[in-house]
């Protein structure tokens, strides 16, 4: 039978510790009790990105850890897609001791299969630096923790302040659907792509589905739909596609030819006016130039149904796990005690990119002083703070053999034939029902 998915996280205010006021542990971080008392030996670190920014951050973090504990850390980075495709084999075979992963069912699934090490000890040591909701997000289906959060980012509407200024637009005036469409109209008349979209990878557009579903039908319906308690053939889902198709005239024509970075390029080159995306790409803008990064801005996706307002947001959490089949579980846990503590967070925050500038990161740790956030990060915080409910993203919140193989292609085929909504809904529902029991 379907295991009960612990989808989504409901919390009143996610960043109670870190939002307005910057309470909690300020500079310094907690003392790590007993850290460094026993040498835990060399360990291996598995990174799931080969990009310059994250690599610099990891190097800074590892350098700080090695300096403190004299434990050797071997760094093993794999390109993101290859890492994800290989994860199951990796965890069974020769995993690194600690590796980067994501919260949500994606993590709980592997924990349930016995491939992740229990990190309750780590949480005992540093748990007080995180809000309750992060702990919930790091908990497996059996109630134990298997994940240490690192950073988060919101999915929201991104735009360039300079373009808005040129177009005479005010971001405060884009709070609901009608206003948004009017804005897109204006952009289209000026020859711009209003809503940059790329779905070649099959997952990018899930963000749009998530937000539209949450806006139109509310958080509870969204969560229930992904857990199989609601049907994909429901008229509510049809409404999502109806609203989505209103965006099509304002999209770039080659949606299925661009991946997320292609859509980002449209924004970067000032060819597109807005883009719904996770804010991680801020680092890429910054690598381009400080001016580009300073020009970047984010607002919550507009309200559609006043009943739900803008109460839900996708805000995936990235972090680390320890692999049960690694050779040095203790070493991995020891590393995470450091990485999750303010000491590790500060070391990461001190990392510099190729231009010598600091790399922006929104840490999950309550100790990061949000007053030190740059303007873009403060905006991300504001977007998050406004939301009552947080979800992780479709492919992290539902069964992996449904998200990637079924929902991804279904959305892509909708882009090919937007009129085929009924057929697509039927397919989604029948394939959900045909899913084999989890084994």
């Amino acid at each position, binding site marked *: 039978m379907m295991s009960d998915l612990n989808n989504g996280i409901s919390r009143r205010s996610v960043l109670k510790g870190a939002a307005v006021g910057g309470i909690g542990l300020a500079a310094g971080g907690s003392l790590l009790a007993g850290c460094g008392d026993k040498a835990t030996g060399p360990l291996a670190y598995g990174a799931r990105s080969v990009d310059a920014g994250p690599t610099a951050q990891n190097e800074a973090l590892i350098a700080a850890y090695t300096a403190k504990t004299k434990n050797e850390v071997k760094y093993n980075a794999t390109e993101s897609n290859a890492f994800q*495709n290989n994860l*199951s084999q990796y965890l069974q075979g020769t995993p690194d001791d600690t590796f980067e992963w994501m919260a949500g069912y994606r993590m709980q699934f592997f924990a349930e*299969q*016995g491939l992740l090490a229990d990190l309750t000890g780590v949480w005992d040591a540093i748990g007080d630096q995180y809000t309750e909701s992060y702990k919930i997000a790091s908990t497996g289906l059996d109630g134990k923790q298997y994940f240490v959060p690192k950073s988060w980012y919101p999915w929201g509407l991104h735009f360039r302040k300079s373009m808005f200024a040129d177009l005479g637009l005010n971001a405060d005036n884009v709070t609901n659907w009608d206003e948004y469409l009017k804005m897109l109209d204006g952009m289209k008349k000026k020859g711009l*792509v209003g809503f940059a979209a790329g779905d*070649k990878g099959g997952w990018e557009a899930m963000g749009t589905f998530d937000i539209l579903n949450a806006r139109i039908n509310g958080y509870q319906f969204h969560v229930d739909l992904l857990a199989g308690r609601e049907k994909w053939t429901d008229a509510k889902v049809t409404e999502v596609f109806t609203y989505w198709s209103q965006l099509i005239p304002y999209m770039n024509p080659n949606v*299925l030819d661009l991946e997320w970075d292609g859509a980002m390029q449209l924004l970067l080159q000032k060819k597109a006016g807005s883009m719904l995306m996770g804010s991680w790409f801020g680092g890429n803008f910054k690598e381009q130039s400080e001016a580009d990064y300073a020009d970047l801005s984010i607002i919550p996706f507009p309200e559609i149904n006043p009943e739900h307002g803008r109460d839900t947001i996708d805000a995936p959490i990235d972090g680390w796990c320890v692999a049960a089949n690694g050779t040095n579980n203790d070493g991995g846990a020891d590393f995470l005690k450091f990485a999750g503590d303010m000491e590790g967070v500060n070391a990461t925050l001190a990392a510099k990119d190729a231009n010598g500038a600091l790399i922006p990161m929104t840490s999950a740790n309550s100790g990061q002083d949000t007053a030190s956030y740059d303007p873009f990060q403060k905006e991300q915080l504001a977007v998050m703070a406004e939301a009552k409910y947080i979800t992780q993203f479709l492919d992290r919140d539902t069964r992996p053999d449904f998200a990637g193989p079924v929902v991804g292609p279904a959305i892509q085929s909708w882009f090919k034939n937007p009129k085929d909504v009924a057929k697509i809904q039927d397919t989604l529902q029948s394939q959900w029902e*045909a899913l*084999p029991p*989890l084994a």
Partner: protein
Amino acid sequence: MSSTAKDITTVSRRRAFSKTDRTTLSAFVGVPLFFHLLLVWVPALLTILLSFTYWSGISISRIKWAGLANYKNIFFDTPAFWEAVKNNIIWLGWFGLIATPIGILLAYQIDRQIRGHKFYETAYYLPVVLSLAVTGIIWNFLLRPDGFVNGLFGRDIDNAISFFGNYDINIYVILTIASWRHIGYIMLLYLAGLKSVDLSLREASALDGATEWQTFKKVVFPSMKPVNIIVIVITIIESLRAFDIVYIIYGSSAGFPILGTLVFQNIAGEGASMKGAAYAVILFVLSIGPIIAYLRATFKSDVQ
């Protein structure tokens, strides 16, 4: 005395093999056979068995019998499967009716040693020598939204011709890239086979006043029967097995489904299930026919 195979047979049957000889022979056959069976045939059988189970590929203790459920799921509940079959059929049609014939005709012309044939032989075969990873990168440069071809048409990233994303044309784009490689391969195979065609036959046909085309059609082609069969079989198998090019361009996303990527998508990654094994078995079953035809054609004389 003139020896024949039969003489050797009788000779070797008459004298018993010494103990060392027997050990040597057993080792000579046994060791390779062991590896081949262990890493090819045993896993193949296991995968066939696994296709009848529910399993995420992780804990062996969790394997559950599923009977035909995976297959039912594929045939009745997975529209992507039928899309993939359609794509593979188009692939087969393209290779069989366009790419392979071009390869054959190219081989014939080059064999006739028309002007520049040495250069042509190299040029057309070059793509075959490249790794598919390199091929993917090369064609990406040409066909990206900000690549060469779009630039030629004066288009940029926002209004580019969507070579890989436009599902009306992308299959032909992929097939062109695949043919870029396939044609050279077939050409060389056929060239090799043409060397064995009796030159005098061709000269006789020319003297009889036949055009080159008639010579090819009526004299050369029929005499190449074994090579023809091999070329046909390779065409079919390559169309069914196609995977690398599509994986390089689309990653593991199911945007452009063919049987090969469906297998990969369902056995790699977090969504792994034995549906992937079932896909692999279907692929295998479809290949059995051509494989047997190949074996028959190649080993006919041995079996007699």
